[in-house]
């Protein structure tokens, strides 16, 4: 806090080999990551994967068992929460029930001994920002969940933190309110340029809102990347499975050239795809193929260009869901593949469409298939 300005190189938060254990449980297992200034960074993963624990260490409610945690280049070590330039929006809101909305929002400024004359206008401004300008006198219990949520947001933002931590802040809201608050959060984030670290269960929420996403499982960070990277180039089977839907086809690596590799399944089908991580011939690997990246064509008709991998299938089941048609095709008695086709043509012609039992050829472009080894 004193002396030379810390060197941060545009990095708001940095974790270096952070481990957090609760007795026997390793909640956070050797996590390293850098979160940039002004970034909307999300942590996504199944329940119990260590998202909250990570966030709580950044906030200072827990201290790492080992490893380093830096905020703007300053080692946080055992620094208590009230000395950190971060604020938290809790899932349960945690508004002070014995204080009016105004006093809730003013609390942080009062604790930092901001001059009285400055507090009132800043509180008013913060409430205005979350569109609760006229609610200052109310008590939290007199407000709806969505309004309380916004008070919690104003209470954190009024302190102009360097980093705002949000732990499933929209978890308790219904679908419509959730969408509204997502837009609201995005608006505030770009307005204020504050770094947001956002924890969520909801992958769609993470994909639409984030600049970058960290996918966690069992205390480990598996992949960090932009929403497109995470979706299009998952680096392991877990990420491919967790985000969106995927077909997984196991096989053995037969051929490697550059970033591309070809696997062969037990049935002898050869499948080509891109390998995000280096693979070696003879290793076991899985082809991950998103259902919407697959083309189904009648036999003999050439679906995709010559580079495509393809194999014959039989249409088994067709589910029309309006925008898409979801088709299950059978490769042999042991294997089916899901295919989604967008209904770009008039769907009234559906009778001329695929029928169960029809023969077809399944094909995909190799840069849409991923060869994953773990």
């Amino acid at each position, binding site marked *: 806090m004193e002396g030379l300005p810390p060197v941060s190189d545009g990095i708001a938060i940095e974790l270096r080999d952070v481990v957090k254990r609760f007795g026997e449980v390793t909640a956070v297992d050797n996590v390293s990551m850098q979160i940039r200034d002004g970034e909307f960074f999300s942590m996504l993963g199944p329940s119990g994967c260590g998202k909250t624990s990570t966030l709580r260490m950044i*906030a*200072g*409610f827990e201290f790492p068992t080992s490893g380093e945690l830096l905020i703007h280049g300053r080692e946080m070590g055992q620094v*208590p*929460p*009230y000395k950190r330039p*971060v*604020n*938290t929006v*809790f899932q*349960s809101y*945690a*508004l*002070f*029930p*014995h204080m009016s909305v105004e006093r809730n929002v003013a*609390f*942080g400024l009062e*604790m*930092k001994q901001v001059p009285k004359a400055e507090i009132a206008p800043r509180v008013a401004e913060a409430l205005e920002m979350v569109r609760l300008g006229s609610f200052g006198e109310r008590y939290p219990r007199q407000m709806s969940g969505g309004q309380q949520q916004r008070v919690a947001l104003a*209470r*954190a933002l009024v*302190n102009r933190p360097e980093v705002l931590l949000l732990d499933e802040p929209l978890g308790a809201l219904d679908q419509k309110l959730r969408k509204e608050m997502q837009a609201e959060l995005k608006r505030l984030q770009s307005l204020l340029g504050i770094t947001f670290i956002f924890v969520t269960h909801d992958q769609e929420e993470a994909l639409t809102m984030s600049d970058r996403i960290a996918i966690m499982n069992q205390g480990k960070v598996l992949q960090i990347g932009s929403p497109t990277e995470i979706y299009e180039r998952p680096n392991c089977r877990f990420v491919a499975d967790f985000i969106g839907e995927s077909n997984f086809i196991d096989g053995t690596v037969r051929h490697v050239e550059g970033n591309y590799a070809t696997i062969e399944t037990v049935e002898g089908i050869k499948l080509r795809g891109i390998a995000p991580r280096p693979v070696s011939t003879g290793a076991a690997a899985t082809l991950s193929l998103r259902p919407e990246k697959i083309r189904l064509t009648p036999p003999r008709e050439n679906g995709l260009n010559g580079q495509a991998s393809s194999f014959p299938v039989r249409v088994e089941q067709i589910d029309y869901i309006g925008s898409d048609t979801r088709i299950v095709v059978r490769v042999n008695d042991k294997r089916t593949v899901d295919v989604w086709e967008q209904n770009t043509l008039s769907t009234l012609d559906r009778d001329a469409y695929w029928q169960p039992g029809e023969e077809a050829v399944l094909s995909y472009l190799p840069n849409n298939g991923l060869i994953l080894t773990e």
Partner: protein
Amino acid sequence: MAEETLTRAAPTAPAAARDTPRRGFGEGALLVNAIFCYLFLYVPILILIVFSFSNSSLAGVWGGFTFDWYVKLFQNTRLMTAMGNSLYVATASMIVATVIGTLVALGMERFRFRGRQAFDVQLYMPVVIPDIVMAVMLLLFFSNAFQLLNALLGSSFRLSLTTVIMAHITFNIAFVAVVVRSSLKGFDWRLEEAAQDLGANEFNTFRHVTFPLILPGIIGGALMAFTLSLDDYVISYFTNGPGASTLPIEVFSRIVAASAPTINAVSTVIFLASLLLVSVSQLLQRRR
């Protein structure tokens, strides 16, 4: 105890009068029950108050209206001293027990530590142990401790009003801790984290968030300690010294000696005082 039941029973009456579309048998029964509860509680008190104004030297006979007994009461130095002693003991033991009991409750609720279970059980001993056992225990403790200290230091510690206060603190800590802990059960500890997150250090967090929120529980605990101390007979009797009678001891010795209507007067004064106390605390709690 009557005051306590009063505050608990209070919600029954408005519930019966609530504006519901259908008033069935259940609601009627509840109303009757409430009325009986109130009668049961207040008729004896009413009788007591009425007879405190009775111009008859027999405590239970009506002999016309008079203020005499109140005049006599305030002229009776022994009763007044005893009342003063009682108030002093109750106030002192309430203050000390409330501070310690609250801290104990906070510690027990917040931290998980080795031996917590055992500590938990031990803490509540004074609540479940019969007064007489506690009294004998404390008497034995004081006399042995004083003997030892006096022999070692040449001091002259002996039973007095101070030992009564110490004894009352001992059992009151447990009662305060129980009451405050039950109010902490519903406390959302994330509020403390939220306060710290907003820049409040431990002291400010306690002062601005934890304390105001558990204050009703603390007030409840303090009131209970005060009342328990005020009407304790057995433990006070065993641990007091010469000339350090508390009100219950004085009253009882008089009742045994001769039935004196001043007792009715003193009871009425105490009843009204406790009513005032409870009302004030209720008002304080409603304000937030």
